[in-house]
């Protein structure tokens, strides 16, 4: 007998099921035609693309307080991804606005600066793009282009200050060791405003959840920019440049941009135009981990809705749950506070006394007052889907 996976992979079948999805309502979390793939050192993940590797964490693996390294999502733009040797790896710090250029080995990085650990969500800018209505091109992520981990490293600002930041510095530019097949393809290079680079939470990280970074998550060293979307968390970091001018590479000027003024969050003034501006901070959001869409809850038996809520670093003030089609809302119980950049667990019992369909909706509120919206703010690249999600279940 053919397995489900083989049926899915049978050419036209894939196309037909994908096409059927176009009619799906927004906010639906289930995507039954997803296929799994396994990268070396990882558990089976949802395979969005094999080359460059783009693998999503299945919903069930997002249940733990910290997302295991072997299920953490993988996202690359370019396909030449070297396996770096930690012993010979070097980090160069230079640029037009550096006082004294530096080259650091991993041992020097670890011994020369204070070690810091921060619990933080790393969320891809395009997380949930596949749930956008109308649909937009790009990697069709559902909910799992994100995870929560403890990132250990040294403060970027300590390294920048050791090299010396000259007056007139505007941006800090980051490059990694991965590159494209074709020399004409722009390398993946990103920049941060100087003030964000100097923020005490921005780390040059070499550990994830107490282990060396996995290859597919940026070994041996990556940037961690808690509160900002994953695009800034440069993997396989090799070059840092302090510059007096706005960096004008493709991945800043043309990609990862939003309509100017359409969303809240930190501004990136040196990269802003009247039309578009870079995506920056993660917006307040939540995820229902259980029950899954279409689940059958047994009448009269204990059931609860569980999930996560997070934002760009203000921290979560409250999570509210509705089980009556969003007419009334009740506050869920929040789990441990793992830090303002981490996600927060929530749970609330669901009344299963009566049989029938239930729509469970969840909305989070940040300590800065921001709340998840009901309506999607459309943008052509499919970023910032933080609308209130709902799952439909059946009590029987």
């Amino acid at each position, binding site marked *: *007998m053919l397995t489900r996976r*083989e049926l899915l992979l049978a*050419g036209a079948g894939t*196309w037909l099921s994908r096409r059927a999805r*176009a009619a799906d309502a927004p906010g639906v979390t289930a995507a039954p035609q997803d296929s799994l793939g396994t990268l070396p050192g990882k558990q089976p993940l949802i*395979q969005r693309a094999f080359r460059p590797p783009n693998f999503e964490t299945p919903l069930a693996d997002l249940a733990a307080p910290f997302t295991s390294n072997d299920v953490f999502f993988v996202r690359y733009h370019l*396909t030449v991804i070297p396996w770096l040797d930690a012993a010979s790896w070097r980090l160069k710090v230079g640029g037009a606005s550096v006082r004294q250029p530096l080259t650091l080995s991993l041992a020097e990085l670890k011994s020369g600066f204070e070690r810091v650990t921060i619990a933080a969500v790393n969320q891809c800018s395009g997380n949930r793009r596949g749930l956008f209505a*109308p*649909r937009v091109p790009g990697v069709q992520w559902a909910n799992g282009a994100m995870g929560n981990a403890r990132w250990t490293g040294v403060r970027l600002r300590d390294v920048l200050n050791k090299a010396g930041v000259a007056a007139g510095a505007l941006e800090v530019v980051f490059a990694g060791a991965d590159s494209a*097949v074709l020399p004409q393809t722009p390398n993946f290079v990103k920049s941060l405003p100087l003030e964000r680079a100097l923020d005490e939470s921005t780390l040059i990280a070499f550990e994830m959840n107490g282990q060396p970074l996995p290859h597919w998550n940026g070994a041996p060293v990556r940037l961690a920019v808690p509160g900002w979307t994953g695009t800034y968390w440069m993997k396989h970091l090799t070059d840092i440049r302090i510059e007096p001018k706005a960096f004008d590479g493709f991945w800043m000027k043309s990609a990862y941009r939003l309509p100017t003024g359409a969303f809240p969050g930190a501004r990136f003034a040196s990269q802003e135009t009247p039309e578009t501006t870079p995506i920056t901070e993660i917006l307040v959001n939540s995820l229902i981990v259980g029950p899954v869409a279409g689940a059958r809850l047994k009448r009269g038996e204990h059931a609860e809705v569980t999930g996560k809520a997070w934002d760009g670093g203000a921290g979560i003030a409250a999570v509210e749950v509705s089980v009556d089609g969003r007419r009334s809302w009740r506050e869920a119980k929040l789990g441990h506070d793992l830090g303002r950049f981490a996600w927060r667990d929530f749970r609330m019992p669901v009344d299963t006394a009566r049989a029938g369909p239930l729509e469970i909706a969840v909305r989070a509120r940040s300590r800065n007052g921001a709340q998840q919206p009901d309506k999607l703010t459309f943008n052509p690249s499919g970023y910032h889907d933080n609308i209130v999600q709902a799952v439909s279940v059946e009590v029987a």
Partner: protein
Amino acid sequence: MKRIARMLGRCGMIVFALGCAGAQAVEAAAAAEITGLKDAPGHDLTVGRCIICHSLEYIPSNAPAMNRAAWQKTIQKMRERFGAPITDDEAKQILDYLDANYSGKAS
């Protein structure tokens, strides 16, 4: 068990193709089975150019978001921004293939 099922599936496809259209169809069907993309005019060229830089899942997975104008924009981006070696004539053939087989969005 899985392997047997896959072999049976493949044999069935080949027998079907032989019965219908002869040897050339067998090759085309086998190629499309390997790439997972639709066997239609432009398949080989599209595969040959796109896989220089990326695997092919992007094509069916993006189909619901695509129409002819969106595919045109994507091909243009691959050529002009990423330097994909595609001539004008090839771009037209690739566009026709993608639009005919992977446009899932109203124009």
